[in-house]
Structures are given as structure tokens and as C-alpha cells.
């Protein structure tokens, strides 16, 4: 069964090709259903392989499928090969499962878009690349998928090219990711130079058997960490992700929340033996990168007003938890949190998409409120997602976050505190968001009277109504919902079933995904405990930290109680501030502006950075005009008479070449002693 693993990327690739050729003819919505079908087909294959593996003994749950030899360069033999093992199959299951649901949602969301089929073409290409990334048998195949998902992300963020903001965001994502990609490429060459292979099995075997030196392992791990910070939006390369929200919402859900951004975490888990044999400070660095990012991004999310921006920063923060888990040696917890996060964050994003859809493209949370009455299904699902991310038991996020915190404490106390404070803040800002959007007064009512209110497609009727309403009906008191005829244009509406079904399924997953890896607490039956750990065991057994004898493990009840208390504090505070209005909200501008991190970089790149590039160009020109002039001054004197008929430039060019010749000769004279 596992030898059919190539079918998993093949289906989305087929979908991409068919849509490329016949996409326009299939049109709206058949192209969308076709694309979704292809992704679900991959899911079925992955599920079949999963059950096949379940029936086998643990050591047989691995299969390498080689399609062909891709790069036969001397000693380096790189195959286009897939590795089916518990890790890659687990990744495929959730990438294809959640990806398929998001495809379905997008059918409703993108309805009527002139580039409907193109959108699904990109989405299928994305799923293809993502499955390549997780199924790759060696670093190069993974890198191929890595670049592929990056390109798709870039294409999809700028999908609505006409929005200037979208084009800039796409550019930012591309450039930042190039920096990370550079790290991955260096890691590949280092792996080749030290181990002589790019295959994961060879690398991990070399690490496990002690053939790989600590220096080499450190280099590879740190370079891959650089790649991970780019792709998974961690400090210092996180700032592209919030801007990437300019893309359509299903894209944010699929790429910038559930799947692509977890690529970095996956890569680090994949090479966990290498991290284990690296110097001790490597895992510590990884853990702090994750922990600090988790806290840093959570503080920024406190003061955001755009519904999607809050979720974007929360994504950065949650991935920080996963990286923290990797650094603490909690590889199972990292994957566990990745899966639960994928379900609840996809749910939140799709819920936000449904809200935005229902609010006619309004994204400012301060202009929403009271929406639970108009969008009951969306609100219910969103609240389940909220409870999961906030860490309220027994929703999925509670279990996975606890697992991460447990291992963090076993590793070091500061790491645990970073994670715990971030958890309080997470509960706080998510409560704030839910209150602003779904509860309280309906602040969108006044929109009808705002002349400058942004409207996606102003129908003549609504424009006329807005203008004529202005003088006499300009006093919306909020509270009671009154929809006068003219205001009916702005009444939020529930989304169509094709968008709601994925929401309901994801809500179910977000509520229950915790059963994947229940801890040995609360009298949970032993055979239901730690299923994911058991499944991933062959992949992570070398790297996973053993915490069985630590203080944290023995007092897990205490930790759970503390975590629940923290969540309660976060939720309670937010409730007092935003619902009861007992305390004035504190949303300083430095948080709203993300600690000015992004704008500082933008200033540098726009100012000194660009000036630096210009300076090199100037020096090049200067060299040509002045330095060469200077050295060639003698030539100029003698050539003075001939000068009249010449452009002058060519002579300088020749001087430049002469100078180069002199330098080469000088080098040989001075260092090689030819005289």
C-alpha cells in the first residue's frame, strides 16, 4: 500500500494540470469542486496508507519510493523519492484533510470572482507542493516543495493584484522567505560536504551512529533553523506573515495558518537526531526563538483591530509554541500542537472569512459587534475555535498547549514562564476578539450613514439611500436592531451551506482533536493515552526528551491547574474590560504597530539599505568616471589631441580594463614574486 504514496502529490498535480488546460471551461463552481475532489482523493490515499501501517509492526512502517534519479552529480546521487513513514503520513492526513475542507469553503467564498478557476489552480499547486515538502525523502525534494509553497503563497497573496497592499505584501513574503531559503540551501551543501548525502535516512543514521560530528550537526541545525524562522514566521523573520493576510481568506487559512507556515517545524522534527547530537546551545536557542516569538507576537495581537491581523499574530505566536516544543525536545508535542492548531486556526480563519463575507468585506472589529444573532452557525463554530485556542478544557488546544508547557518546564523555568504568560495573553486577546465581533452592540449599523464607508460593490440603490439618509436618520443608538429599508443593504447575513459545512466539520475537530494524544491523567484509560506519541515513536525515539523523572512530570496535575487558572485570568480580564467596561482598555500604539519592528526594517531597507545598493552602483560609476580618470590621467594628457573626435567614455573604459590588468600583474609581482 505504502508504495502508492506517490499518488498523494499526484492527485493535486493532476488537478493543477487539468485546471491549467480546462479551468476556464469548467468554470464556477465545477472547477472548485474538482479541485477539492483531488485533494480529498489524496486524503483517501493517505488514510489508506495509515491503516495499512497500523496493521504492521512498528519497525516496518517505513517505505521509500523512488520515482527517478533526479541529480546524478558525481558522488552526489539525489533521487526524486518519497518517504512514507508515520511522520509524513500524519502530516499528509492533516494537510489534505484540512486542505480539502478549505477548498470547499473557498468555493463559496470565491463565488463570482472573475479568476475563480485560477484561484483553485493555485490552491491545487499549493497542496501538491506541500505534499512534496512533507513526503520528500531528502532535503532537496523537501526544498523543492519548500520553494513551491513559497511561490504559491506569493502568487495567492497577490491574487487580487489590483490591491496595491496585496502586491507589496507578496513581495515582502517572497524576499523574507528567500533569506530563509538561503539557510536551507547552505544546510544542504553542508550536509553534502560532511555526510555526502541529502537523504534524511542517511543524515539521521549518521547522527544516531555518531558519524556526524557535533560541529557539522550544529551547522546544519542552525541553518535549518534560519530556514524555519523564514518559512514559519518566527523572530527575526516573522514580519511577512501579518501582511500576507492581504490575500483571500481561504488562502490565509490554508497557507498562512494551517499548513505552509508549519513547514519549518516539520523540517526540524524531521531531522531531530541531528538537533540532538548538535551542541547543547542549539536546542536552547531553538526553544528561546520559539518562546520569545510566542510572547512577542501575542502582545502585538492585543492591540490589533483588523480581525485577520489578530489571527495572523496569534498564528505567529502559536507556531512559537511549536518551535519551543522542538527546542525542549518535545517533538510529539510539536506535531500534536501543529495538528490541533491547524484545525482550530483554520476554523478561526474560515469563521473570520465568513464574518467578512457576511459584513460585505468589513475587517475592522470595532465596526462589528452583536453578530451572533445574524450568523448563529458561524458564531457557534467560531466560539468553539476560540475555546480551543484559548486553552479551555476539554477543547483540543488545551491538551496540546499543556503538553508543550510540560516539556518546557522540564527543560527550564524561564521557557515555561514565556509560554505561560503567552497563554494568558492569548486567552485575553481572543476573548477581546470574540466580544468585539459577536457580542455587545451592533456597531455596523452606523455604516449606512458614513459617506466614506468602504463598500465593495455599491449598487446604485444603496448609494442613493446612503446619501438621502444622511440628514434625517443619522442617529443610530445601537442596542436594538432596527433595519429600515435602506439599512437593509448592510444587514450581515449568514454564509451559504458550502461555507458552513467545512466550518462545522472543523469545529468538531477543534473540539475533539485532543483525543489524539491524551495525557496519563484524570483516570483516562491507558489504551487511549498518548496515541500520537505511540504512532510517531519510530521517528522521534532518538531525539525525544525523557522527562519521566523530572519534577514537572510528577506534578503534572499542578501544571494543569495552573494553566487553567491562567486561562481563567486572561478570559476574566478581557470580559471585565471589553464586555463589562469596568476597566479602560490599554492598547498602546507601540503594540498596535508591532513594537515598530516591521517599520524599522522597512525604513532601513527603504533608506540606508537602498542607499547602500545605490552607493555600490555609484561607486561603480564613480570608479569608472573618476578613479579611472585619475589613474589614466597620463593617458589623457597624451591623448589630448585625439580627444576631440572621441566620446571620452570608451577611453575611460579602456583605462578601467588597463587598471584591472595592472592589478592582476601587481598581484603576481607582489605575492608570486615573478620579478
Amino acid at each position, binding site marked *: 500500500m505504502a508504495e502508492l504514496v506517490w499518488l498523494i502529490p499526484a492527485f493535486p498535480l493532476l488537478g493543477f494540470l487539468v485546471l491549467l488546460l480546462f479551468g476556464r471551461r469548467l468554470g464556477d463552481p465545477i472547477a472548485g469542486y474538482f479541485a477539492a475532489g483531488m485533494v480529498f482523493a489524496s486524503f483517501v490515499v493517505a488514510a489508506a496508507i495509515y491503516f495499512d501501517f497500523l496493521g504492521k509492526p512498528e519497525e516496518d512502517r517505513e517505505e521509500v519510493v523512488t520515482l527517478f534519479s533526479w541529480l546524478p552529480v558525481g558522488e552526489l546521487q539525489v533521487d526524486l523519492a518519497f518517504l512514507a513513514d508515520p511522520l509524513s503520513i500524519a502530516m499528509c492526513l492533516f494537510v489534505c484533510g484540512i486542505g480539502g475542507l478549505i477548498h470547499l469553503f473557498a468555493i463559496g467564498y470565491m463565488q463570482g470572482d472573475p479568476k475563480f478557476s485560477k484561484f483553485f489552480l493555485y490552491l491545487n499547486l499549493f497542496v501538491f507542493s506541500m505534499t512534496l515538502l512533507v513526503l520528500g525523502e531528502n532535503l*532537496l525534494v523537501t526544498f523543492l516543495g519548500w520553494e513551491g509553497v513559497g511561490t504559491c503563497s506569493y502568487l495567492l497573496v497577490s491574487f487580487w493584484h489590483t490591491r496595491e497592499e496585496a502586491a507589496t505584501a507578496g513581495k515582502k513574503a517572497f524576499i523574507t522567505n528567500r533569506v530563509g531559503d538561503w539557510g536551507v540551501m547552505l544546510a544542504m551543501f553542508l550536509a553534502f560536504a560532511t555526510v555526502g548525502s541529502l537523504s534524511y535516512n542517511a543524515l539521521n543514521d549518521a547522527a544516531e551512529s555518531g558519524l556526524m560530528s557535533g560541529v557539522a550537526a550544529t551547522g546544519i541545525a542552525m541553518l535549518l533553523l534560519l530556514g524555519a524562522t523564514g518559512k514559519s514566521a518566527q523572530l527575526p523573520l516573522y514580519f511577512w506573515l501579518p501582511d500576507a493576510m492581504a490575500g483571500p481568506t481561504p488562502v490565509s487559512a490554508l497557507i498562512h495558518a494551517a499548513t505552509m507556515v508549519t513547514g519549518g517545524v516539520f523540517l526540524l522534527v524531521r531531522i531531530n537526531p541531528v538537533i540532538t547530537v548538535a551542541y547543547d546551545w542549539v536546542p536552547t536557542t531553538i526553544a528561546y526563538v520559539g518562546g520569545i516569538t510566542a510572547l512577542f507576537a501575542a502582545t502585538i495581537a492585543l492591540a490589533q483591530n483588523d480581525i485577520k491581523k489578530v489571527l495572523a499574530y496569534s498564528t505567529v505566536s502559536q507556531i512559537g509554541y511549536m518551535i519551543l516544543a522542538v527546542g525542549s525536545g518535545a517533538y510529539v508535542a510539536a506535531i500534536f500542537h501543529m495538528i490541533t492548531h491547524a484545525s482550530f486556526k483554520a476554523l478561526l480563519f474560515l469563521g473570520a472569512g465568513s464574518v467578512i463575507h457576511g459584513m460585505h468585506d468589513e475587517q475592522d472589529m470595532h465596526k462589528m459587534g452583536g453578530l451572533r444573532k445574524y450568523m448563529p452557525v458561524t458564531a457557534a463554530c467560531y466560539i468553539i475555535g476560540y475555546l480551543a485556542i484559548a486553552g479551555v478544557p476539554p477543547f483540543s488546544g488545551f491538551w496540546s498547549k499543556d503538553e508543550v508547557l510540560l516539556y518546557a518546564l522540564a527543560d527550564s523555568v524561564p521557557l515555561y514562564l514565556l509560554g505561560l504568560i503567552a497563554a494568558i495573553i492569548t486567552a485575553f486577546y481572543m476573548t477581546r476578539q470574540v466580544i468585539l465581533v459577536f457580542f455587545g452592540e451592533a456597531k455596523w449599523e452606523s455604516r449606512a450613514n458614513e459617506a466614506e464607508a468602504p463598500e465593495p460593490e455599491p449598487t446604485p440603490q444603496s448609494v442613493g439611500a446612503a446619501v438621502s439618509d444622511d440628514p434625517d436618520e443619522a442617529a443610530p443608538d445601537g442596542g436594538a436592531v432596527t433595519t429600515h429599508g435602506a439599512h437593509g443593504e448592510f444587514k450581515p447575513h449568514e454564509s451559504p451551506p458550502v461555507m458552513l459545512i467545512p466550518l462545522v466539520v472543523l469545529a468538531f475537530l477543534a473540539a475533539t482533536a485532543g483525543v489524539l494524544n491524551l495525557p496519563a491523567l484524570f483516570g483516562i484509560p491507558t489504551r487511549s493515552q498518548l496515541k500520537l506519541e505511540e504512532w510517531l515513536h519510530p521517528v522521534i525515539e532518538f531525539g525525544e526528551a525523557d522527562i519521566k523523572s523530572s519534577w514537572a512530570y510528577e506534578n503534572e496535575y499542578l501544571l494543569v491547574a495552573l494553566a487553567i487558572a491562567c486561562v481563567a485570568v486572561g478570559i476574566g480580564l478581557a470580559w471585565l474590560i471589553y464586555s463589562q467596561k469596568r476597566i479602560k482598555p490599554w492598547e498602546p500604539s507601540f503594540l498596535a504597530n508591532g513594537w515598530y519592528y516591521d517599520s524599522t526594517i522597512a525604513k532601513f531597507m527603504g533608506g540606508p539599505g537602498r542607499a547602500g545598493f545605490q552607493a555600490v552602483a555609484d561607486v561603480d560609476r564613480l570608479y569608472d568616471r573618476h578613479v579611472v580618470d585619475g589613474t589614466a590621467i597620463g593617458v589623457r594628457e597624451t591623448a589630448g589631441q585625439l580627444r576631440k573626435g572621441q566620446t571620452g567614455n570608451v577611453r575611460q573604459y579602456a583605462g578601467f580594463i588597463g587598471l584591472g590588468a595592472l592589478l592582476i600583474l601587481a598581484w603576481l609581482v607582489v605575492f608570486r614574486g615573478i620579478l
Partner: protein
Amino acid sequence: MLAQVDTFVGPEVNWFALSPLIALVAGALLMMLAGALTPRWPNGLYALACATTAGTAGALAMVQWDDITDNGPTTLVAGAVAFDTFSMFVTILICVSIILVAMLADDYLRGTPNDGPEIYALLLTAGAGGVVMASANDLIVLFLGLETLSLALYVLAASNRRSNRSGESGIKYFVLGGFASAFFLYGIALVYGATGTTNISEMVVALQNTVDLETPDGLALAGVALLLVGLGFKVAAVPFHIWTPDVYQGAPSPVTAFMASVAKAAAFAAMLRVLVIALPFYRDDWRPVIWVLALLSLLVGSVVAVVQTDVKRMLAYSSISHAGFLLVGVEAAGHTAGELDPGSGMSAVMLYLMLYSVMVIGSFAVVLVVQRHAGGDSSIEAFRGLSMRRPAIATAFTVFLLAQAGVPFTSGFIAKFGVIQAAVDVDSYAIAVIAMVSAVIAAFVYLRIMLTVWTGTPAENSEPIRVPLAVGVTIAGAAVFTLFAGIIPGWLIDATDTVTQYAR
């Protein structure tokens, strides 16, 4: 005198082994002769004749390739010409490039006073010069090829008589090229003085037998330095790149494409012949120079390209940065030059040249299409909104730009991977890392062009962009090759692996 003539015995010539070269030269001569004697040929026939000639030469080179792999490399014409897969690979590369460029030139020349056999004959002549450079086993023969190629290129660069810039470009190239050739020739003279021969086979033997390591031979080293200047000029390595932007921008686009592919390939082939094959003895002397040239080319090429506003100039600077990558490969070859195991540097350079030639011709073909539509304007503004007017062309352009940036699944990735892997193989980490940094910087340039192509609305003038059939076929073919070679490069890598079995 007469007595001498009587005793002169001409070298034995294996005419068939020289057939690719003969085909090119004969094609050029026949086109000139027939073109002069017959009335104007129907549209497209000149280009067809040119492409057919190049195709024949390429096919003959493939036949020779088989012969070489069966019977081993050898030298021809009394040791003056090498007969090996190295020269045949470059011959095939040049022939493919001529075919593509001829298809571009056809439409470009329609309706101009140049629409005759001359331009095509010059393309073939230049190609023949390139082939000679790549197959030379004697420095004088190599110089002969260099001049044949260069003289044809000077005329081609200046061939657009209606444009002052074209003329300026030609004269600049001519003056500076002459200057550089003088360096090269002087270098040959000095090396001859030191070794007593210009023949590469004899030179290697002479150096091994006579030179004593303790006291380096100043005469020969000075010769090496001057050869480096001449070669550096031809491959457009910084600081000898100075002519490139002006000449690339001014020359007609098909000619620019020709320079970036054929001239660059021939120059790098010559560089490998001279440095790696003929002068491995001095490899520790020339390798650091190549290292510095590579470093400067990589950085200046990619950084300066970022601030350009003209797409042709951007591509000119990007070609300088590509030259830097190729020099990384040459540097890697320098570590193991002359040894029994020649390493992978030479093969990587050959592979890069083949892949780069195709993508650069494709890029310039798109520039040609846009430039003609915009009335000769090749600034980046002319590309705004290209995707709305010609989505297929915009897609192909994107493929070329992604390939130049070295994105996987395109041939550019395979090319860059090859040279960097060769550098890592010989522990040249520093230059490999710098090359990758410059690739990151250069990615910005390509991204900027791509963004202009895919975003924004085209200017008011909504005349449809005309894509002539031949140009369209060229672009499509180049794009398909770029993708195909990126996904299934094994066959090309295998072919280039054999070039290290050179004759000498």
C-alpha cells in the same frame, strides 16, 4: 625559398571530423554568394537557410560525439585542433543558439535595410569562430577563433544603421575588444617565450619538464596575467565588464541574445582550454585571480542590477552575475586542474552554459517583443501589465526569470546547484556562500521585473502586442526546455560529465 616549399608537407586532415565547423563556414559563404547572385529571397528564407546550416552543423557534431565516445578523444590537423566531447558540446550549444537567434532575427530584420543574407552569414561566421575557440589545441588557433567571433560581433552590434546607439555600441565594443585582444595576444607571446611553443599539448609537457618550482618563471606568469585580462574581457568579468551594459543595451536585441549566449559560451570554453587544460601547472597562480573576479562579478552584477531601470541593462548586469557563477565553477575546476580526477568544475560550467544560453535567449526574445511594441523602449515601464495583454508571453517570461533566479524545477536551479556543488566539493566554501548571497540579492531584480509584468494596468495605448510565429516558437521552445531540463536534467548532466575527458 622554393626548396622549402618543396619540402613542406601539409598536415594530414581528417576532414569528416571537422565537418561541423566546415558546415558553418560553408553555409556562411554560400549564403553570401547565393544571396549576392540571386534576387531577394522570399520572407524568412534567409533565416531558414541559416537555421538549417546551424542545425546541420549541430547534427554533425552529434555524430562526431558518438565517434569520440567510441574511440576516445584525439587531436586533428597536426595537433592544432582538439577533437573531444568538450568541443562538440560547445559546438552543439552554439548551433542551438544560432537557430534560436536566427528565428528572432527574422522578424526583427523585416522591413529594414538589413533584411538580407549578411546578418545571417555573420551569425554563422561568429558561430564558427566560437567553435574554433572551443576546439583549439593551440593558442594561436584559439586567437584566430577569438578574432573571427569578435569581428563578426562588432559588425552585428553596429548593424542597426537606423539607431545611433547601435553604432555607438559597435564602436565601443570594437575599440575595447581590440584593446583586450592585444592583451591576449601579448600573453600568448610571453607564454610562447617561456615554453617555446603555442601548442597546448606541447606546452603542458614543456612546463612539467623544464620549470623549476623554486623560481617561478616571470615570463610565463606575466603571460598568464595578460591571458587572464583578455579572457576576463570576453566573459565580461568585473572589472573587465565595463563594456557590457552599454553594448548589451545598444545592440539590437537578437544580437544581444547572441552575445549573451554564443559569445559567453565560447569565451568560457576558451577560458577552460587556456587555464584548466593548458596551464594547470600555474593553477595556484591563476586560481586566486579567478576567485577575485568571481567575487566581484557576483556582487557587482547582482547589486548594480537592482538599481537599473532598463530591462536590457538589468539583464546585462545579471549576465555579469551569471558570469560570476560560471567563474565559481572555473575556480572549482582550478583546484583539481591537470589531475587524474578532474573534479566536477568543468562539467558544471558546461552545464551552466547550455542551460543559461537557452534561458537568456528566451528572456531577450520577450524583451524583443515588448520593445518593438513600445517603439524601441526597453525600460521597465514598457513591461507593465504585460500579463493582461499577453498572458502566455508573461508566463514564459516568468519561467525565464525564475530560472535566472535559480528556483527549483527550472534549469537555473540545476545550473547553480552544479557550480556550487563543484565548489563545495573542493572545499571552496567562502565563494560558494558568497555566490548564494548574491543569488538572494539578484532574486530581487527578477522579482521586480515579474511584479511589473503581473501587476499594474498597461498604458493607454491598447494596440495588441504582435508576436510573430517564429519568435513565439522560440519563446515557447526555450520555456519548455527550461522547465524540462529543470525536472529531468539527468541526460544533460551525464553528457557534461564526459567533457573532462578532453584531448590534449
